């Protein structure tokens, strides 16, 4: 297939092929250790003229992929700006091992502040001994819940509510300390922001 003008071997998903070719592309909900989630919509590219999420598009069958056309860059930046609007504080990378990913994607697209009014995201939970959750940094990528439910098979946390009401919750809406969380740390390791951060 042709990728940004050069000939490459298709490999796995479009995202896999793009990253293997050394082309930077945000992919905030796609964790190497986890299956495709498809929630963050930040790995948008043009595949044979269609805007698609690279993570969930098989590379086989695509003949031309463009990662930086004017249109797809504009739309990707738009999604990232909506993502930035979910976070009230300045970008920070003082959390878990992946916590720099969102800040890096925002910086790469020149986004410091969103033009939108901030959403109400005041919930936080510091009841766990080892880590805390702060909704005002959470981008609802779903990596933490996938890690907890599908990787560790614990199921201490989920995403409850619809639309703007959706947020990470433990158990049936109580604090983490009252849930079946084993403090394994997988959620913190998967988080691409500082929403889930180890305690000092």
């Amino acid at each position: 297939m042709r990728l940004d003008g050069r000939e490459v071997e298709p490999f796995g998903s479009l995202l896999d092929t793009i990253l293997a070719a050394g082309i930077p592309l945000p992919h905030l909900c796609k964790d190497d250790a986890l299956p495709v989630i498809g929630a963050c919509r930040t790995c948008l590219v043009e595949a044979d003229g269609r805007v698609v999420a690279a993570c969930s598009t098989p590379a086989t069958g695509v003949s031309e992929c463009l990662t930086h056309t004017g249109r797809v860059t504009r739309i990707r930046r738009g999604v990232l700006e909506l993502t930035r609007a979910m976070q009230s504080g300045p970008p920070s990378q003082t959390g878990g091992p992946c916590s720099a990913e969102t800040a890096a994607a925002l910086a790469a697209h020149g986004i410091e502040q969103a033009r939108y009014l901030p959403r109400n995201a005041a919930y936080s939970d510091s009841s766990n001994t080892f880590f805390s959750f702060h909704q005002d940094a959470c981008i609802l990528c779903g990596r933490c819940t996938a890690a907890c439910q599908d990787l560790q098979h614990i199921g201490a946390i989920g995403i409850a509510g619809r639309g703007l009401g959706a947020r990470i919750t433990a158990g049936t809406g109580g604090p983490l300390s009252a849930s079946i969380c084993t403090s394994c740390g997988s959620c913190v390791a998967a988080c691409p922001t500082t929403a889930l951060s180890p305690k000092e």
Partner: protein
Amino acid sequence: MSRPLPPDFPLRSHLLPRLFEESRRAGWIAPERVAAIAYDLRIPAAEAWEVAAAYAGFYTSSKLTPEPACGWLACRMAGSPGDGHCQFRCYAPPASGPEDLFPAGMVRQAGPLLAAVPSGAHALQSARLMGRDRALEQVAGSGLRGRGGAYFPTGSKWRSALAEGRPLALVVNAEEGEPGVFKDRALMSLVPGRVAEGIAIAAFVLQPNVLVIFANGHADPALASLESALAGFDTGAPIAVYRGGGGYVLGEEGALLNAIEGRRPVPRTRPPYPVQAGLFGMPTVVNNIETMANLPLLFDDPAAFARTGIETAPGTRILSLSGRIERPGVYEVPIGTLLRDVVERAGPVVQGEPAVLMGGPSGGFLAASAFDTPLAPGPMHPTGAMLGAGGITVLDAPGDIRETTMAAAAFNASESCGKCTPCREGTPRLRDALAAGDRAMVEELGEILEFASLCGLGQMAPGPARSALHFWPEVFA
């Protein structure tokens, strides 16, 4: 639940039925009840909680009495003070109280689908005499396209699923969650025998190992009518009946399948497509009730079916008409009928010019100047209007336009499932930009929603705003 799930259904797939039962029993679903149900089904509490909290029709913080009055268009025009979800009785606004069978008097125009059913199930017999392969060819060759609103060729969908091998699932979607649409209820209430025979034909051709009917959580009388008609047919696999807690997103096949499996009802990424790996990982055919109702026609009188409608989309379509008209109700018309003919038959009662919202909150407006458009699959106007599931709300333009546009934008924001960022964050901002008259921002967000959203709900959410700004820019100045 009126009937237990088949014994081979996994434990987790009992979650939605148990939550539905609890919601009916108590009027809400308390967190400790969710935990108890989760314990019974050996699911972590958080995974049951995210399911319970996802449905607009399930209350998880307290009992809500009385239920909020209908807040959708026809009921608001008729003076409903509420802001609740559509109650799917836009033909008799304002809707109140529990649902009843769809009234026969609200069939304003009947065609082959809504005509009285001759007894005898001759179509099923014809299909059986043909055998499965020829019956499949009959469906594919008829050109029937799915009536859920996407108009995918039914025969191709069946062939693709059958080509994947077995076991195979058939899911009949009677969720009917689009505000302003009530045609599935009309079919199930008035011609349940035709729907049941269609399901039996599909079951004969597909031989599904799992057969699910997913019915709207409020449509008790329509469902009871269909279930008693189904009792007269052999469908092979036992039928599992699911009831929802509401949700426009259940029109997305992946979300519907997640709902049945006891997972958060959010769309799945594609591929794999449901025909490849759908319910419980099986090749799965998801078909709408009206698609099922069409199947007997393909065997009773295929020539008549082929003669009706247009070459690329034969047959009729049941339209749900409501709003500022003298004769609201269902109109069964050949596909390709001009919108103008239908609106005139319904008798607009307006002070300004008549206009329509076509395709509900995912569709768009058409001004009277565009009424000479045929009702057919595909875009009816580049700004958003489409036939979709056949919902047509007649409005008074320009008087109703602003409020209707805002209602559609608010609906999309509140029905966004919350999974993907563009839709979750973009639909409320689109609503705000409209309210502020910020046309540039509406267009910017419209492009993001259309191209970046995971499913049709977000992709088509800009339609009402774009079309309103196209036809009546002064309303938002």
